[in-house]
C-alpha cells in the first residue's frame, strides 16, 4: 500500500540537470570581471534556481493555496524590514546626521586593502 499522493512527479533528473547548468553559469559569470553582469547573473540565476526548487521539488505550486500565500507574506515582511532599515545602514550621512564610525570603517578598510590590490 502506498501513501496517498497528491503529486504528479515530473522528471526530477532533468530539473536537477537544469539547476546544475544554471549553477555553472553563475560561477562562470563571476569570472567575467564586469560587476553589473556578475551581480545580475549571480542573483538573477539564484532567483530562478530557488523558483525551480520550490516549484518542482517542494511542490509549492500544487500545495493548498494558503501555503504559497503564507510564504509570500513572510517574504513581504522581510522586504518591509529591509525597506525600513536599509536607508540608515546603506547610507552613512543624511540631511541632519552622519555615521562617522561607518565612514571611518570604510576608509580604513579600503586603505588597508589597497596595497594588496594595486
Amino acid at each position, binding site marked *: 500500500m502506498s*501513501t496517498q499522493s497528491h503529486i504528479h512527479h515530473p522528471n526530477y533528473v532533468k530539473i536537477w540537470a537544469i539547476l546544475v547548468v544554471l*549553477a555553472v553559469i553563475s560561477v562562470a559569470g563571476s569570472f567575467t570581471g564586469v560587476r553589473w553582469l556578475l551581480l545580475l547573473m549571480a542573483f538573477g540565476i539564484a532567483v530562478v534556481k530557488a523558483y525551480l526548487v520550490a516549484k518542482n521539488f517542494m511542490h509549492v505550486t500544487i500545495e493548498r493555496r494558503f501555503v504559497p500565500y503564507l510564504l509570500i507574506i*513572510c517574504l513581504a515582511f522581510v522586504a518591509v524590514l529591509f525597506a525600513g532599515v536599509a536607508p540608515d545602514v546603506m*547610507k552613512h550621512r543624511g540631511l541632519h546626521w552622519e555615521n562617522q564610525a561607518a565612514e571611518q570603517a570604510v576608509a580604513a578598510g579600503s586603505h588597508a586593502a589597497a596595497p594588496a590590490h594595486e
Partner: protein
Amino acid sequence: MTSRPIATGRTAAGLPSARLVVWWVVASEIFIFGGLLSSYVMHRIGHPEWAFQAAHTNTWAGAFNTLVLLTSSLFAVLGHKAADSGDGPRAARLLRLTALGGLTFLCVKAFEWSHEIREGFVLSTGGFWSFYYTAAGLHAAHVLVGMLILLVVAADAARNQELQRVECIGIYWHFVDIVWIFLFPLLYIAR
C-alpha cells in the same frame, strides 16, 4: 509490505497535519534567514570595502557545495517519489544518500573554515567575517539537524513505516538548499 499513512488526518487547514507543521517551520525559517541575509545585504552595500574580505572566500569550494546540495535535493525528492509508490526501502536508501550529501557539505565547510581560520580570518576579524561565519554556521547547523532527521525517517522508511514523513523532511531539506542558493552568490561571488 505495508505502510501506514499516519499523520495524514486532515487539519482544519485542509492538508495533513505533519505537512502543515513543516510549512510553518519553513515560514518561521524565512524570517530567520530573511532577516539575517537582508541585514547582510544592506551592510554589504554600505561597506564596499568588504569586497576585499569577500575575495578571500573559496569560490570553488562554495560551487562544489552548491552541486552537492542540489544533488542531495534530487535524492530527497526521488525518495519522496519512491515513498509515494510504497517502496520504503528505496526511499530509505535515497534518504541516506541525501544525508551523505549533507555530510559531504559539512566536510567541505570544515575544510574551508579551518583554512580561513589559519589565515587569520575569524569571527571577530571584521563585519564581513562576522556575517560570513554567522550565516554559513547557522545554515550548516540546519544541514546537521536535517541529516539527523533524514536518518531517523530513513530507518522507519526502510521498514515501510511512516512513509508520509519522507515528503515532510524533503520539504525542509529543499528549503535548506534554497537558503544556500542565495548564500552562495552573497558570500562567494559578489565581490
